[in-house]
């Protein structure tokens, strides 16, 4: 670690990196995992959502779903490009994991990673119908925004910038979901509430555990700033607000 001491304290004091050549081994590893988790979640999420396009009740809904699928692939590509600068094989990346694979609806993945890819747990669950797709999109969309706002502060500047560009578009995806939700409120209230009950604990698990030692390490590297618990609290409040607006 000796030759990295300078750079480690530089990062701990808020310094930023902008080129792979300056990244110490542990930093590189954690950054790659962070990027892989994002890319895999976008790819798996988009693959699952692609099937929902045909569930859309009208042309408008199908356009919204198509746009979400398109842009999530684009977001994956942007971050994958940065992984490529660290040596990942971007041409092959798409081919190595079965992005459409899902577990049974009632199976419990918990907060674990499954299979070979790094997608967040929530992208292992299948979507059942259009209302379910809309609810999942709103709930996970709110989580994505909070998680991306956190990652957009990370010390690897090219990634932070990529996330800052991605953020407004992910926010728009969530808003498209909210618009859909408003429409479903009258016609399909029961299904919406059932879906919310289904997704709430699963999305909550995507914030990860309370491993304080690991967080301290990531914080020192400037890769994280707020704890998982902190982010989860913010999300809980956002979801409470959605539930309240549905009940009103």
């Amino acid at each position, binding site marked *: 670690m000796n030759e990295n001491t300078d750079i480690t304290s530089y990062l701990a004091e808020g310094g930023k990196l902008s080129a792979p050549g300056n990244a110490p081994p542990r930093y590189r*590893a954690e950054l790659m995992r962070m990027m892989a988790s994002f890319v895999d979640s976008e790819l798996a999420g988009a693959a699952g959502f692609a099937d929902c396009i045909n569930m859309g009740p009208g042309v408008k809904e199908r356009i919204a779903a198509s746009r979400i699928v398109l842009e999530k692939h684009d977001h994956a590509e942007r971050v994958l490009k940065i992984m490529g600068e660290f040596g990942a094989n971007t041409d092959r*990346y798409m081919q190595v994991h079965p992005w459409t694979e899902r577990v049974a609806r009632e199976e419990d993945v918990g907060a674990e990673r499954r299979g070979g890819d790094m997608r967040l747990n929530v992208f292992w669950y299948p979507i059942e119908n259009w209302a379910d797709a809309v609810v999942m999109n709103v709930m996970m969309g709110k989580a994505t925004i909070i998680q991306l706002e956190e990652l957009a502060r990370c010390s690897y500047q090219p990634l932070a910038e990529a996330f800052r560009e991605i953020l407004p578009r992910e926010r728009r995806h969530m808003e498209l979901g909210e618009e859909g939700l408003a429409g479903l409120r009258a016609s399909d209230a029961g299904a919406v509430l059932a879906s919310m009950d289904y997704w709430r604990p699963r999305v909550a698990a995507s914030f990860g555990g309370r491993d304080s030692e690991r967080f301290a390490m990531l914080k020192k590297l400037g890769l994280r700033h707020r704890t998982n618990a902190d982010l989860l609290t913010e999300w809980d409040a956002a979801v409470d607000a959605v539930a309240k607006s549905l009940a009103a």
Partner: protein
Amino acid sequence: MAQFYPLRVTDVKRDTRDSVILTLAPPAGDEDAFNFIQGQYLTFRRTFDGEEMRRSYSICAGVNDGVLRVGIKKVDGGWFSSWANDELETGETIEAMAPMGNFHAALNPDEARHYLGFAGGSGITPMISLIKTVLDAEPHSKFTLIYGNRSTNAIMFREELEDLKNIHMGRFTVVHVLESEADIDLFSGRLTREKCDALFERWVDVCSADLAFICGPEPMMLGVSDALKAHGMDERAIKFELFASAQPGRAKKRAESASADGGAQTKATIVLDGAVRECDIDKGAQSVLEAALAADIDAPFACKAGVCSTCRAKIVEGEVDMEANYALEDYEVERGYILTCQSYPRTDKIVIDYDQ
């Protein structure tokens, strides 16, 4: 996979006592690969004593200058920079990858922006590219450069900066901060937090600035960014480029391999985050990564498919079979790097180092 191109050295110009500026010509037909964005760098490779070395140097030309140049400052004990300074001559070829890097902001000819640049020593090289490009592409923008050096004769691109002041009269300002030889206290010393605070109070108006670029050694970059933030600049408007100091020196020779033989288990020694751990690996059944994870060692990984390179480590002793490798390049494999998710031990003892 990274592709290297042979670039012809068309000029070697000595800039200061310990720095040179190389002008390079891409091979015919590959010119487009070397169209760069301001602030990007080139990664060169060269073999020294049978071992490949790679070094990155910033391009120090504007995007519309029609020329590809890099500035190389000699570093004590640096093989590549010493070779470039002492031996490299016009007419030779040197291998480089296409330009990379993200030290820039999108240009907009209609904007009237005020840029601040902070360079320490050879940190000036990408700044030259930024200054020239911005002043050329954005006719209403201005650029203020604060440039720290030990002494006058250590200032790289001194004449060129003077020329730029004359060409872009009123739009380009340079403030030299020198550790010695400066007559005025404000411009004497190092670019520290305190120095920047003083400059921002009396000389440079941070409030009028839209963006700041910083390139230099770590302490300087931290000091400058802290001062900028304290004077009201949004963190997102500050761009950092750290160079050279963190690049490792010459790679060590790979240890001699132990002879392969047929026990069922391999004793593995794993170096990670400065700690040394031991674990057993079932030969033929477990990858190095699987065994490390089974032993509660926090080894890095992501794809487990030989594609992403997150699990990269160096084999210091022993031998492994790598089943798939889509991420490491030949030179890395030659140096002993392996993808631990794809590596199965062949020898009874292996030593794996994740910290190299």
